[in-house]
């Protein structure tokens, strides 16, 4: 190893402990070597200082790092998702209640178009009395008289108004039984039968049946309660 190589390794910690001690021993007896070792060190430190100054200038010229703005969009996105989930939950919650309420919103007794009442009719028959009671909203009497009439003849229109009266009276199960007997496709009140059955199914939260009945109604009589049927079909499709 040449002398300069030894000195370089000495100052860069690359000599073994023995080699280092040997060089230090030599320096004690060799002034020229000692001077060479010191000269190397002087230059090493001088270059280090120059390097340090250059690096300081270099780093000072770099842009100051601005504090990182907290990324708000993930929070905003999470909040939006939570909001949507919340809205969906609320919507679903409201939808759970809605079928029952829908029935109340949409149900109306069917007008008496089967047996028009002539005012001041002196000799009223049983049928007339039944429909007078019906038009007056006296459903219990209407039910009683219609049931009595049905014992004499299985008249679909009497049964229809009996079913509607039962619904109006709040006897929904009995009404369903009566509506179920009015399945003849040619029955002139077939559309309102399907409509009432659908509403009663909604009331029982049986949206699948309600939807089936509404689709049947829409196909059979597209103009019947058109807007209401479309709304309820949309509603039941979301379930």
């Amino acid at each position, binding site marked *: 190893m040449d002398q300069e190589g030894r000195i370089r390794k000495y100052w*860069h910690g690359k000599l073994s402990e023995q080699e280092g001690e040997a060089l230090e021993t030599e320096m004690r007896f060799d002034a020229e070597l000692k001077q060479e070792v010191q000269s190397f060190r*002087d230059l090493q430190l*001088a270059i280090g*200082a120059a390097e*340090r100054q250059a690096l300081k200038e270099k780093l000072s010229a770099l842009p100051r790092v601005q504090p990182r703005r907290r990324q708000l969009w993930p929070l905003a996105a999470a909040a939006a998702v939570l909001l949507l989930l919340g809205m969906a939950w609320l919507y679903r919650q409201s939808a759970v209640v809605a079928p029952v309420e829908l029935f109340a919103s949409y149900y109306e007794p069917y007008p008496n178009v089967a047996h028009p009442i002539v005012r001041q009719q002196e000799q009223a028959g049983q049928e007339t009395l039944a429909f007078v009671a019906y038009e007056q909203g006296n459903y219990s009497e209407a039910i009683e008289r219609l049931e009595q009439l049905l014992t004499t003849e299985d008249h679909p229109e009497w049964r229809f108004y009996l079913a509607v009266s039962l619904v109006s009276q709040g006897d929904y199960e009995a009404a369903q039984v009566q509506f179920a007997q009015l399945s003849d496709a040619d029955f002139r009140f077939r559309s309102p039968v399907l409509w009432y059955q659908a509403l009663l199914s909604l009331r029982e939260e049986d949206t699948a049946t309600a939807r089936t009945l509404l689709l049947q109604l829409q196909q059979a009589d597209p103009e019947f309660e058109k807007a209401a049927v479309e709304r309820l079909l949309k509603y039941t499709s979301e379930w």
Partner: protein
Amino acid sequence: MSPTDKQLLERLRMDDKQALEEIYLAYQHDFLRVARKKGIAQEDALDIFQDVVIDFYQQVQNGASSINSSIKAYLLGMGRYKWYKRLNQQKQELPLVDERMVELDTEEPAALTQKQEQLRTGFSRLSPSCQEVLRMYYYRGLSLSDIVEQTQYSNTNTVKSHKSRCLKRLSELIKN
């Protein structure tokens, strides 16, 4: 130590100054934030951080630094030491060393002698190629053959003769 830190260290050892800038920019904000919590003025903190990064760079270059923790923790530790030392110099009684500084190589660069200062001035006036070859040999401690490997020099004799001419030029600059 993370793989990223290991890569950065290796690049520093290979004298990659881009790695130095990356470290400086990557940890500056964290360093200043810690300094702010300690009530250190941001300009002082930035000055300390620059010194810390340069010390770290020079220690890695000289092979004097052995880091087991992350670069960030090492820089923060060195910064804490430098800050306490600066306060002590202002005659404030503060503990200079704590357990978090055990790993740190906190040797401060010594003040230059008159001769060393002359050399530094002369060195800065040398040509870039002279500065580079002297820097590689004396400052980084590379052998002549290492320099051939890392540069365009064709062989060690060329490096040796170029180094000799540069030393002669440096000597002339100092005499003048």
